[in-house]
C-alpha cells in the first residue's frame, strides 16, 4: 500500500516538472519496414526515463531521430521547446550542446588521445563557458567525475571496454548537457562493470540534475535507474509506467520483458 502511494506521489511530482523533451506521433519507415508507427513520449526535468524494447523495435532509430542523425517521416520532436524537425542546422548544432549522447560502442575517436577526445566537443561550443575557463581544467574535471583522470594521455586502444564507456561518458559530460541520451549504456560489459556504469549514471544525475533517456535491454539497469519506463513494441509506446507497475502487469507482451 505504502509503495503504491509512493509511486503515485512520484508520478504526480514528475508531471509538475517542466517538460524537457517530447515526442508526438513519430513515424519512421525504411521502405516497407515501418519501424516507428506513432511513438509518443515525454521526459520531465530531472527524470530518468528508460525505454525498453526488443532488438529491431526501433529504439536506436528513435534516439537518432531525437538528435537529428535521422530524419523522421512525420511527427514532432520537441527538445527544450524547440521542434528539431523544423529548425535549421545552425540552431540544431547550438541545441546539441545541451544534449549529451552516450553511444552504444562508446564511439571514441580512435586517432585521438583521451584528452583530445574530450577537447573535441569544446571546439564548437566554447561560447558555453566563460572565456577565462581553461580547457585543461574542464577535461580534468570531466575525467575526475568518471574516475579516470590518470588515463588522460592514453589512446582509446589502450583502454578496456568499461574505461572506454567512462571516457565516453566524460566526453558527454564536458559540455554540461541538460539532457543525456544513453544508447545501451551497459551492453557488452561484464556485470560488475555494468553496475559501476549504472552507479555512475545515477551519481551524475544527482550531481548535475540532468534528465536522462536510457535505452536498454538490461532489466537490472532499468530497475535501479528508472523513474518511469516505456515499453516500445511494434513501433508504439505500448506501455508506460514505473518499473514496479510494469513488472506487475499481467499482459503477456509486457511480462516477456521481465521474465529474464
Amino acid at each position: 500500500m505504502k509503495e503504491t502511494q509512493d509511486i503515485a506521489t512520484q508520478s504526480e511530482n514528475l508531471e509538475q516538472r517542466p517538460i524537457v523533451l517530447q515526442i508526438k506521433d513519430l513515424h519512421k519507415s525504411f521502405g516497407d519496414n515501418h519501424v516507428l508507427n506513432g511513438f509518443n513520449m515525454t521526459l520531465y526535468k530531472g527524470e530518468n526515463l528508460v525505454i525498453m524494447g526488443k532488438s529491431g523495435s526501433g529504439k536506436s532509430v528513435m534516439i537518432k531521430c531525437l538528435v537529428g542523425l535521422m530524419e523522421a517521416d512525420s511527427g514532432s520532436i520537441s527538445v527544450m521547446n524547440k521542434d528539431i524537425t523544423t529548425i535549421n542546422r545552425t540552431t540544431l548544432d547550438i541545441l546539441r550542446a545541451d544534449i549529451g549522447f552516450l553511444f552504444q560502442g562508446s564511439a571514441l575517436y580512435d586517432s585521438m588521445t583521451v584528452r583530445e577526445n574530450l577537447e573535441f566537443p569544446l571546439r564548437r561550443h566554447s561560447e558555453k563557458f566563460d572565456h577565462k575557463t581553461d580547457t585543461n581544467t574542464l577535461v580534468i574535471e570531466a575525467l575526475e567525475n568518471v574516475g579516470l583522470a590518470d588515463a588522460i594521455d592514453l589512446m582509446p586502444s589502450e583502454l578496456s571496454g568499461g574505461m572506454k564507456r567512462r571516457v565516453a561518458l566524460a566526453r558527454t559530460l564536458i559540455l554540461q548537457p541538460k539532457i543525456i541520451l544513453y544508447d545501451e549504456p551497459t551492453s557488452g560489459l561484464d556485470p560488475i562493470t555494468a553496475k559501476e556504469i549504472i552507479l555512475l549514471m545515477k551519481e551524475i544525475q544527482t550531481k548535475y540534475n540532468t534528465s536522462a533517456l536510457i535505452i536498454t535491454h538490461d532489466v537490472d539497469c532499468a530497475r535501479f535507474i528508472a523513474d518511469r519506463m516505456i515499453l516500445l513494441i511494434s513501433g508504439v509506446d505500448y506501455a508506460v509506467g514505473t518499473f514496479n507497475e510494469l513488472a506487475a502487469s499481467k499482459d503477456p507482451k509486457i511480462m516477456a520483458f521481465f521474465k529474464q
Partner: protein
Amino acid sequence: MLSIQSIGNQLNTFFIEIGELSYFAGRYFKEAIKPPFEFKELLRQCYSMGNRSLLLVAITGFIIGLVLTLQTRPTLMEFGAVSWMPSMVGISIVREIGPMITALVCAGRIGSGIGAELGSMRVTEQIDAMEVSGTNPFKYLVVTRVLATTLMIPLLVIVGDAIALYGSFLVENLKGNVSFTLYFNQVFDSLEFGDILPATVKSFFFGFAIGIVGCFKGYYCKKGTAGVGKAANSAVVFTSLLLFIIDFIAVFVTDIFYEL
C-alpha cells in the same frame, strides 16, 4: 537474355554511383568554401599523406626510371639513337608515366587508407558522435582529406619524376658513361612548358579523384567489418578506373591544344 539483364543492372548501379559521387563532390565544393576552416586538420592530413607515401613513391619512381632505360636502351642502340635516351625518358616520365604511376600507387596507399579509416569511423559511430557534438563531420573529415590529396599528389608526382629521372641517369651513367650535367641538360632541353603544365594540372585532378572517391566510399560505408573492407577495396578499384578516364580526357584535351 539473363546476361543482358545482368549487364544492364550493373550499368544501372554504376551510373547511380556516378550520380551519388557527383552529388558528394558538389557538397565538397559547397562545404570547402564555407567557414569555419579546419586548417590544423588539413596540415595534419597533408603531413600524414606525404609522409606515408613518400618512400613508396620514391622507390616506385626509381625502379620505373631504371627499368624504362634498361628496356629502351637496346632498341635505341639498334637505331643508333641512344643519345636520344634522356629526351625520350624525360618526356615520357614527365608527361605520362610519372603522374600516372604515382597516382596509382597513391590510390592504393592513400585512397584505400581513407576508405578504410572513414568506413571504420562510420561503423563505430564516430562520425555520428562528431555530428552530435556539433562539429560538421563532412567538413572535418572529407574536406580536409580531399584538399590534402589534391595538394599533395602533385608534390609527390614531382618527387617521383625527379627520382625516376635519377634512376634513368644511373643506368646511362653506368652503361654509357654519361655525366649528370649532360644527362639532365638533355632532359630539360627536350622538355617544354607544354609538357610540364598539362602533367601538373592532371596531377591535381588525380589527387582530387583519389581523395573524393576514398572519402565517398568510406563515408557511406555499409555496416559491419565486411563493409569497411569493401569500402577500402572499392575505393582503390573505382579510383584506378577514374584515373585512367581522367588521363584519357587530359591527353585528349592537351592534344587539341597542341594541334591549335
